[in-house]
């Protein structure tokens, strides 16, 4: 069953083609990876899905909702949440608060002025945030301020914030960037758990080939805004064009 449907997407940044006739479909409950060299349009594609950029042509549909017609902050309402390439956190809040930021839509305004009325609601969300943190294995840090925490934890907090929105699909922009091998393994485990246990569709942009190959159900290779290849990891790995673009002369060596 199709979850996300992208058709004939064209995006120009003052003459530079960032996306050129991109179309693909993402099925429900799969890990779909976007790979490609720098500047091939991966992040732009994410931004288009998220509503930060508006493409000149084409359509993006998510469960029959036209994503091009809604504002960035409304994407969460339709079940799409995302993490960012460079950290987008609030350093002077605790981990728990950072995660609760994602629960924004479910907390009512009375949270501010009437803690007695909204106590239940607040406790529910706090419990949920703790659950999510526990799921990611950082529950013990919940009262610490985010600033000064290791990079790995800050990355995980972003994922936690994306998860607490109860999304149907998560967009992850380079979840393993800047992480060491062990942390990358952990991320790989988390991503597959998100798919398997929570049943959430995951759309990943990533440079780490080992990670991509090990977790993805399907991979789409972008180059200069065009789709180069698409398919199962094994198919993509052996695709001649991909080898040329990615490995260049190394393949022949």
């Amino acid at each position: 069953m199709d979850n996300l449907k992208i058709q004939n997407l064209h995006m120009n940044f003052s003459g530079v083609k960032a996306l050129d006739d991109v179309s693909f479909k993402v099925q429900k409950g799969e890990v779909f990876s976007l790979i490609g060299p720098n500047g091939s349009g991966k992040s732009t594609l994410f931004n288009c899905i998220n509503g930060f950029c508006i493409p000149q042509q084409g359509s993006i549909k998510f469960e029959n909702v036209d994503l091009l017609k809604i504002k960035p902050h409304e994407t969460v309402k339709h079940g799409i949440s995302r993490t960012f390439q460079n950290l987008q956190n609030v350093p002077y809040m605790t981990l728990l608060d950072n995660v609760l930021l994602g629960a924004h839509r479910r907390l009512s305004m009375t949270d501010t002025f009437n803690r007695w009325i909204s106590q239940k609601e607040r406790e529910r969300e706090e419990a949920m945030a703790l659950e999510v943190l526990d799921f990611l294995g950082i529950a013990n840090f919940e009262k610490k301020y985010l600033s000064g925490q290791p990079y790995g934890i800050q990355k995980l907090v972003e994922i936690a914030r994306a998860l607490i929105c109860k999304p149907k699909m998560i967009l992850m922009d380079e979840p393993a960037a800047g992480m060491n091998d062990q942390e990358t393994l952990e991320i790989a485990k988390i991503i597959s758990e998100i798919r398997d246990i929570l049943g959430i569709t995951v759309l990943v942009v990533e440079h780490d080939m080992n990670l991509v190959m090990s977790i993805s159900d399907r991979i789409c290779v972008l180059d200069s805004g065009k789709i180069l290849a698409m398919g199962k990891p094994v198919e993509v790995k052996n695709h001649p064009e991909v080898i040329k673009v990615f490995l260049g002369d190394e393949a022949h060596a």
Partner: protein
Amino acid sequence: MKGRYDDENLKWIPILIIAVYLSPFLLKSATFSYKYYLYILNMAGIYMILTVGLDLLSGFTGLMSLGHAAFLAIGAYTSAILVDQAGLPFELSLIITPVIVGLCGLMIGFPALRIEGMYLGLTTMGFGFIVKRLIIAFRDWTGGSAGLQVSKATLFGFTISNDWNNYFMIYTFAIIAIIVARRIVKSKLGRVFMAIRDSEQAAQASGINIAKYKMLSFFISGMFAGFAGVLFAHTNHFISTDHFDILLSVYFIVMVLVGGVGSIYGAVLGTLFIVLMENMFIPLFKDTLTQYMHLEAGDFQAFIFGLIMLLFIIFQPMGLYGMWLKMRIYWKLFPFNPRKRFT
């Protein structure tokens, strides 16, 4: 049942509140000229309400405002007109005026959706000038540049007539304002404001309508300023455009900066610090220092404030409240390398 992350030093708050209410009695027994000190404390109390609101806007939401003196002016004049000319009771004005000023804040919030930082500062500053001209222009209601006499506050039948009564009224409201601000900061709204300050993308990805909450921040900040304005008008009994010049807005920013941007207690501490500094400590050594430095009285004050601000920005960017937190952590961890524990 307590929320999970209510402030851990909550138990100190009742003691602090009792101290606030006891201090005038202490002052009275300690010094003959207690009325003067009370007056200064009253001023600090009014400014506190405003700077707490300013901190919500500038410290938490990251929107700079150099127009808060104008908000204070609108609050003061609105209340004076409502109570003295329209005949509304003071209690009603306490509710209506902040809302009106909040709406003015909303108006100034529109440009904030498009511009940021220094440019927003300049825009709000321009707003301040416009308000001043408007007050002069509507001289039938505001008394123009000659100023306006304001009646005394009457709260539930009691006329608040002197500094002694003013103190209790102002500080009761100041405590309420601080508690409300703390609630805002510790709730969903506070998280949203901080997210807008630190990462608009994260905020949007979490489903936060940035435009709406920026405006809301201006509205809330305006409400605090309006509230302060009401108290200002009815405890000073005279307002004029000379009160609300641009320098006052700068002072508010300095208060927030010195106290520590982004903490409610910081704004409170900073306000107390600056007001007491200006009126009590600087005069103590002004005469001796001016002899050597050949500065005139006013220049001297500006010089000291500039110096304080510079020192704080360089050495103590977290302000007074940050200093206090550091000290607390220092003693908590005392024997073990306490340095650089706090970032």
